[in-house]
């Protein structure tokens, strides 16, 4: 066992983690900040974000942070905490400008300002028409953010522990964060990172589902670890299905395609979104569009009888609809090549389709966790629904639930979230570390992790982890996906409990070694996925209403009387307990209304 001492340890090296590290180091002169990640930083999932980062810069037309805030609240189906939304929308503007100052190569307007485009749910609040709020760098905005932040971290000489997989959160006897335990993947050795503050920024857990846009690495390690340490998870039932994943693979096809004029068509060639969202059509928020696609498929209007629809961005189609709408814009092949180069590449590589000539086959894909580790607007982790915090513990980015996205996240707001709240987490952790002392470590800090790793390394059952993972993913897709019923969720919970039992009692692995043992690491990740899946299903069963991404066929209406509250789930003696006592913050004064797009 190796022990390291730091003031602040950041877990995860995506956008939120790197932004937090940058700010932590700048706000803690002479302090020691480490970033610990199971990947190399440039391989974090932020790098796959495509379309843009939302900020009311108003570079091309009138826009205001208040409009951004309202769209976020409405898009979130009124579950968003409005104090957090205010911070998001206000700070987005300075945060994006700051990224530009850090060197981020945004696309530019002719006057040299940052280019912006339309995205789902972002509107001019007076006309209700789409507004250009998404700041972008081609269709690889996340890639540019990730690279820029990593570059700045190198410039600022931040210490990185690449390919160290964090497996436990250490807490002192008086309940403060005291560091983390990680395995050095290359050697199989355990390391203790003893610190005053810990910032969790490990991203999402789309790998709970069988069709997902998420990387293989997105396995819910962060939430699972804190859950096992007795801490709550918030609003886990809200998981976004992005309407346009490449059919069969789930690879994301950015909303920017529709932002540039692309339309969704069914097997009759109908632009069906006109029926579901008459004003904003294909640029309605993601929950609305995902449900619309499912309803089209259910009604037998999938293409060639298969479960997908077409996303058509061919100039011929787009220009016809623009002309019909009296819009003077026109696109050509060059526009698509310039603004959506990666999308062209994905479509050609994986579907053999050239989007300049042919429509893209798409279906909803598991995409983004609205829920996660509960935090307040200072990125401090909550210990319970009453708002008590865990001293020294912070979270930001997709892993955190602050909650700005509420029941459904607007496109571009994930990048905004991780920049704004990553920055806050870094600052606040630095402030805390300036006055805090190093808490004592528990007596055997690596004991629990070592025991589980030894068990996995020597298990001699009959079930391979891959079998369990596939059954979990299919079960969650079937029963805890876009549409849900009590019956289906109960079925899923039963299956998950069986799978957890098999994971505990009947697992077998091939690799008994230490060096880069991905067999053991994947099994560990499966354990996290199973825990997260169970909390998701249990939280979904209890929420007897339909709100945002959570659509209950047996409770089709939103129920503000009973459910204008957050779900807090904790694990007590192996059982999930739910608490619905935390009300939604309505401090901006946006009262729940019917959502019409």
């Amino acid at each position, binding site marked *: 066992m190796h022990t390291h001492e730091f003031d602040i340890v950041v877990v995860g090296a995506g956008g939120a983690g790197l932004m937090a590290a940058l700010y932590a180091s700048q706000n803690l002169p002479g302090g020691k900040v480490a970033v610990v990640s199971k990947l*190399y930083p440039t391989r974090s999932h932020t790098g796959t974000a495509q379309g843009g980062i939302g900020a009311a810069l108003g570079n091309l037309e009138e826009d205001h942070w208040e409009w951004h805030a309202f769209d976020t609240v409405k898009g979130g189906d009124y579950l968003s905490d409005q104090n957090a939304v205010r911070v998001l929308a206000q700070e987005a503007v300075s945060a994006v400008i700051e990224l530009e100052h850090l060197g981020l190569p945004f696309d530019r307007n002719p006057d*040299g300002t940052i280019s912006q485009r339309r995205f789902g749910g972002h509107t001019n609040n007076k006309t209700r028409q789409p507004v250009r709020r998404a700041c972008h760098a081609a269709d690889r905005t996340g890639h540019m953010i990730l690279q820029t932040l990593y570059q700045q971290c190198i410039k600022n000489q931040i210490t990185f522990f690449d390919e160290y997989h964090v497996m436990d959160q250490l807490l002192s006897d008086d309940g403060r964060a005291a560091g983390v335990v990680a395995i050095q993947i290359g050697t199989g050795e355990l390391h203790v990172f003893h610190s005053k503050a810990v910032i969790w920024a490990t991203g999402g857990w789309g790998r709970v589902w069988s069709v997902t846009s998420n990387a*293989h690495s997105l396995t819910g390690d962060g939430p699972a670890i804190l859950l096992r340490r007795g801490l709550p998870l918030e609003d886990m039932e809200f998981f976004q299905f992005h309407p346009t994943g490449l059919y069969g693979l789930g690879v994301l096809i950015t909303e920017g395609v529709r932002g540039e004029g692309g339309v969704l068509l069914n097997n009759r060639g109908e632009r069906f979104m006109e029926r579901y969202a008459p004003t904003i059509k294909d640029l309605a928020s993601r929950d609305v569009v995902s449900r619309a696609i499912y309803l089209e498929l259910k009604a037998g209007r999938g293409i060639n009888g298969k479960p997908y629809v077409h996303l058509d961005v061919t100039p011929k189609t787009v220009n016809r609809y623009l002309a019909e709408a009296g819009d003077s814009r026109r696109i050509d092949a060059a526009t698509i090549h310039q603004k959506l180069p990666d999308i062209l590449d994905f479509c050609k590589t994986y579907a053999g389709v050239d989007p300049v000539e042919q429509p893209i086959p798409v279906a909803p894909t598991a995409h983004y966790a609205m829920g996660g580790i509960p935090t307040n607007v200072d990125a401090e982790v909550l210990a319970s629904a009453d708002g008590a915090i865990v001293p020294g513990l912070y979270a930001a980015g997709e892993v955190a639930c602050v909650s700005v996205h509420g029941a459904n996240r607007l496109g571009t707001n994930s990048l905004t979230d991780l920049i704004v709240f990553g920055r806050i987490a870094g600052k606040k952790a630095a402030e805390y570390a300036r006055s805090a002392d190093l808490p004592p470590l528990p007596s055997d800090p690596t004991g629990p992790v070592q025991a589980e790793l030894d068990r996995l390394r020597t298990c001699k059952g009959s079930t391979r982890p891959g079998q369990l993972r596939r059954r979990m993913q299919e079960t969650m897709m079937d029963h805890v996906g876009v549409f849900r019923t009590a019956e289906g969720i109960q079925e899923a919970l039963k299956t998950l409990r069986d799978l957890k039992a098999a994971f505990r009692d009947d697992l077998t692995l091939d690799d008994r070694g230490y*060096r*880069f043992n991905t067999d053991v690491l994947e099994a560990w990740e499966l354990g996290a996925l199973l825990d997260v899946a169970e909390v998701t299903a249990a939280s979904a069963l209890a929420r007897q209403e339909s709100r945002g991404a959570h659509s209950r066929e047996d409770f089709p209406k939103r129920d503000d009387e009973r459910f204008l509250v957050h779900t807090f789930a904790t694990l007590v003696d192996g059982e999930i307990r739910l608490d619905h006592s935390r009300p939604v913050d309505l401090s901006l004064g946006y009262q729940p209304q019917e959502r019409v797009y």
Partner: protein
Amino acid sequence: MKAHFRIRRFNPETNAKPYWQDFTLEDVAPADRVLELLHRIKWEQDGTLAFRRSCAHGVCGSDAMRINGRNMLACKVLVSSLAAEGAESVTIQVEPILGLPVIKDLIVDMEPFFAHYRAVMPYFVNNDPPPADGRERRQSPEERAIFDDSTKCILCAACTTSCPSFWANGSYVGPAAIVQAHRFIFDSRDQAAEQRLDILAAPDGVWRCRTIFNCTPACPREIEVTRAIGEVKLAIQMGAERMRARKMTQGGTE
């Protein structure tokens, strides 16, 4: 169809030296990606097989490996590109990228690669105060376009580890690091171009490039790597400012 895999294996905990191992997969479809098939081998036949991967669609750069003798991302190679049309079977040979120490199976030590990356000042430098109005530093679309290609790099190492000059001399900074330097040298907002050009003019810098051209076809992001290296060579000779002006009049790299 059937897929016959020949995979280069090496686990220093148990093997004295590397060896080839064969695997056979049934029911392989032309649209399957090599990464999916490696997963099938690992998940169904041999859990000890070790390789890196993450995003699985060509953006994170984790799964660069040598497939049938060429550097590629396993997640971006479809069986159809390796098999003859209508073939009943396909043979796929997989080995780690060359020129970096092998840690286990298809996993190499990336540290020497990232050390070269860090050596070229791969970060934005501008010591002027930001604009007083609190807004962005302005840059025209044309200025932005001249370094667009080199912003696509995902640091997968496919280019550097396909380069015979790098194989011959691991202290050569390599194509990927030069592309990263290029990204800043040609950014109109950056102020450290001359320092980077000094670094790249050193003996293990850009002149080790013999224009063999392996790097460009190896790049999974279709960056014109050899061209970027050539532009850096010219910038050393002409100065960054003049070279940037010349690129501007040529209308960028696309």
